[in-house]
Each structure stands twice: as C-alpha cells, then as structure tokens.
C-alpha cells in the first residue's frame, strides 16, 4: 500500500503527531483503544454545539432532530455489520456491558440449574467472569474449549464439549492476547447443529475485518466503539430479533418501558426494551461517524496493509534472542504478543515507553491465558491503519535496546 495514502489517513488523527519524553509517539496500544479521527471528534462536538437534546418522546424540534440522528446512527451501524434490521442493534456502553447484558438476560431465558455455558481458553475476562458468576448463582458449569501451544483452539475438543449440551456458546472472534482469528463461522455451524446459540465477541475484529453477521449466522455479536475509532462510552449488541424478542430486559427505567404502575410494568419494543436511561446520543453519532470513516476506505487494502505491519513486526522480532511469541496461529490479526527470556514484561514496557513506544504489558485482562502459558504477562504491540512501517522499525529497535539494557 502506498505510504502517501497511510500518511493522509494518519493526518486525520492529530494525537499521533505528538511527542512523549521528547520522542515521537509510536502508538501500538490499539487493541486497548484506538485513536479517533477528526471527523469523529468533530461529530460529537457538533452535536453538543447545535443538536444536543434528550431524545424519544419529546415533541419539540431539537428532540425530534436528535432522535432521528440517533436512530439513523443505529441504521448505519446495522448496515455496517449487515444486520437484518436496525432494531437488531442495541446500543450499549461497550463489549463488557453487552456481555453482561447477555449473561443476565439470556442467562435468565436459557440457564436452569446444572446447565452449562461454553467459552474458550483465550477469552477476555469480560467474556469469562460474567458467565462464571451467573453460573455460580445457578449452580451451573463453565466449559472451556482448550487451545494448543500456538494459541489455536482445539476443534475436536470443541465438538466433544458441544456434546455436553451447553446452552450457550460465547467465543472471541479474535483473541486480544494472542491475535488468533478463531474459525467462528465453522464453530457457529457446529453449535447450531446442536441447536446452541452462539455469541461472538467482536471487540478485536470489528475495526479490522469485514463483518457480516447474517453470513456468519451468529446469534449475537458484541463490540466496543472505542476500539473502532469511535468515542468511549458507546458500543453495540447485535442479536437476532427472535432472541431479542424473547429475552427479558436487563436494566429498567426511561424509554425501555411501555406502561408503568406501582403494580406492574410492560416493556417497550425492540431495541428500546434494552436501552434503559438517557442514551448516549453524542457518542452514538460519533460511532456512526467512525463507521463512515471506515467505510470510506478501501477495506481490502487496509486489511492487507495491517497484515503487512504485523508480518514485519513478527519477522523483525524473531531475530531477537530469547524472544518467544505467545500466540502463533497461522491465522492471526492485529497484534503480536511475546516474552523475552529473563526479562519481565513490565520492565521492557517501562523502558521502551521512555523511547516513545506505547505498548501494553501484563495479562491483558486474560489471566487464564497467562496461566496456560506459565508466564506473568506479555508485551503486546497492536496495530491500526494509521501505523507505519517505520513505526514498526522504531518499536523493534526499542525492544532490542531495552532487552540489551535489561539482560
């Protein structure tokens, strides 16, 4: 890909153009959160400058306009992931809230005593703890699909675990620690053969890969705006309407009710049933703007470019003595995780930070993955479309220098 094109994109992210400790910032913590293009930042600002209002049920002009803008944002997001209808999209605060909503609401609908839920060994805490805690209350059991030393899920074990009749399967599309792209389409098909609904945690995939929830045929797909160039405080839960219709509401109050008396309450229709309280209209418009930003790009090229960034990082890091990659699946995306013999990730992260390189160190909210590999944590560099090949080089150089200091 043409570096002029990348530089053009990069210019839309003012934060990247800064120095830390007198060094140019090399931001490689995109799996934690991405930076925001000006169009997104300005969309939210414009909303507060000209359009801000509480929505739904207001008859006045501003309220009408804001309501329409918010519902348009829903349509945009629905189209982006190819949902069958806008009301299949529930706006939430993000992936964690979406998964908690599902653990609670789908849990109420499907989980009886002794029932099981199947997740994988590489889940983020947000796709583990909600299920674990819900199952504890219901005296149920968490099944965990194991992975091999490369960070690849064992599909044979997955099949046998499905035989144990879990009521729900919830799987990361892409691991935030290993970068593994899971074969979710296949996994969904396998689960459906057993009549089990599947939730896909798309936190790490939505910014980087084309998503078609209908072609995947997943029952739910959850994601965070802040990991796809949108503001914090907004995210989504896609669900097939059949499920969403059947599920009880999660939080109560505001627009989600239909009629209320002290004795009883009836609930609003989809998607409002799941959106309690004043919605975050400004952030939803920011999310819409982020979607439009992504759609304005040549997505195939961007995907190829991001994969080239990763490739280069992997190649160059391989030269470092004692470096061990954590996660070596053939199908990987977006990030590289590693440890270096005798060097604590915290130390490495601290030193390269001083060189302007921002990576994440630690367990990345996936402690069981660390336990699995017997390590205290990893160094993780994660990429976005505005990163350059030069930044990869600076990063690898920094790692080499730090390793020399620390050894």
């Amino acid at each position, binding site marked *: 890909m043409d570096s002029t094109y990348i530089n053009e994109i990069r210019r839309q992210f003012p934060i990247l153009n800064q120095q830390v400790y007198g060094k140019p910032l090399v931001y490689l913590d995109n799996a934690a959160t991405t930076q925001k293009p000006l169009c997104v930042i300005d969309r939210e600002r414009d909303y507060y400058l000209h359009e801000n209002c509480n929505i*739904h*049920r207001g008859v006045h002009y501003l309220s*009408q306009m804001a*309501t329409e803008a918010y*519902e348009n944002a829903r349509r945009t997001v629905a189209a982006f992931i190819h949902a069958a209808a806008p009301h299949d999209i529930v706006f939430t605060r993000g992936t964690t809230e979406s998964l908690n909503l599902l653990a609670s609401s789908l849990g109420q609908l499907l989980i009886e005593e002794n029932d099981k839920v199947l997740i994988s060994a590489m889940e983020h805490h947000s796709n583990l703890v909600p299920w674990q805690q819900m199952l504890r209350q219901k005296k149920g059991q968490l099944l965990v699909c194991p992975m091999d030393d490369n960070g690849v899920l064992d599909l044979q074990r997955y099949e046998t675990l499905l035989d144990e009749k879990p009521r729900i399967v919830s799987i990361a599309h892409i691991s935030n620690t290993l970068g593994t792209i899971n074969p979710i389409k296949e996994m969904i098909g396998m689960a459906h053969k057993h009549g089990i609904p599947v939730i896909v945690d798309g936190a790490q995939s939505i910014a980087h890969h084309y998503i078609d929830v209908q072609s995947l045929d997943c029952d739910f797909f959850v994601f965070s705006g802040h990991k796809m160039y949108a503001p914090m405080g907004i995210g989504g839960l896609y669900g097939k309407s059949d499920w969403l219709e059947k599920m009880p509401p999660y939080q109560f109050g505001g627009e989600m009710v*239909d*009629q209320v008396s002290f004795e009883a309450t009836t609930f609003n229709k989809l998607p409002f049933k799941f959106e309690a309280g004043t919605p975050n209209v400004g952030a939803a418009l920011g999310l819409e703007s982020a979607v439009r930003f992504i759609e304005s790009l040549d997505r195939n090229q961007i995907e190829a470019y991001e994969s080239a960034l990763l490739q280069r990082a992997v190649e160059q890091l391989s030269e470092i003595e004692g470096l061990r990659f954590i996660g070596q699946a053939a199908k990987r995306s977006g990030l590289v995780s590693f440890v270096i013999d005798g060097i604590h990730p915290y130390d490495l992260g601290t030193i390269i930070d001083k060189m302007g390189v921002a990576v994440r160190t630690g367990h990345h909210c996936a402690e069981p993955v660390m336990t699995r590999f017997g390590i205290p944590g990893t160094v993780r560099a994660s990429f976005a479309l505005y990163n350059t090949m030069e930044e990869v080089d600076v990063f690898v150089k920094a790692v080499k220098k730090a390793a020399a200091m620390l050894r």
Partner: protein
Amino acid sequence: MTIKEIQDAIVEDFSMFDDWMDRYAMLIEIGKECPLIDDKYRDDKHLINGCQSRVWLSAEMKDGKVYFAADSDAVITKGIIYLLIKVFSGQTPSDILDSDLGFLDKIGLKEHLSPTRSNGLLSMLKQMMLYAEAFKLQEDKK
C-alpha cells in the same frame, strides 16, 4: 374520487395558507369538529397507545371497499387522522396499499408521522395498511 384526487384537494385546501399558524388552526378546526369514531370503539381493543396521545381505530369492509373510523384524545392528532380517513376510507384495499403519502409532506405535516413522535399516528397508519392487506387476502380467497 381516487386517493390521488382527494390528496390533491387537501393540498389545495391547505395551500391557501402561507404560514403554519393558519394551517394548524385549520387542522385544529378539523380535529375539533369531526366526531370520528363511534363510542363503542373507544375501548382498549381498538386503542393504539402512542404514549403522548392515544389513538383508536376500527375498520370494516363493505362492497369491496374499506371504511375506517378513528379518533384521538389530542386534537392535532385527530385532525391528521381526519385527513387520513378522508383519503383512505371508501377505497379498495389495493388502492390503499399502493397509495403514496407525499401529500402530508406538501402540507407540512410529515413530521407527525415520524416514528420518533410517539403520538400513535404512525402505528395507526401501519395498522390501516395491515387491515387493507388482510381484507385484500380475504378478497383474493373468494
């Protein structure tokens, strides 16, 4: 008169007035003066709950044509209902299903049919179309 002709007539009536005040005044007059539905239909079964205003709707088929009656507790809503009833009542199911609602835009009332308005009008309109469709199916079966 065809649906189109009735709509054109309404647009012409309203076009006499330049400003919204006069148009709304006319709508309010219409809303006030027309007893639109028999009291026996003002029950929960015929209620469409619009949160801000309530709408009652009934429909019947006579000689291949649909006759609607409707009402609301809010007078502006009622005025618009009157216009819709005038347009659709006495038409065949097919004509109703094929019709176009652009005339509401032309007289500056489109916003009232927004899904976000929660006055029950849009739900009523959807319900009218469902009736038309149901009647059409009945007809086709014969």
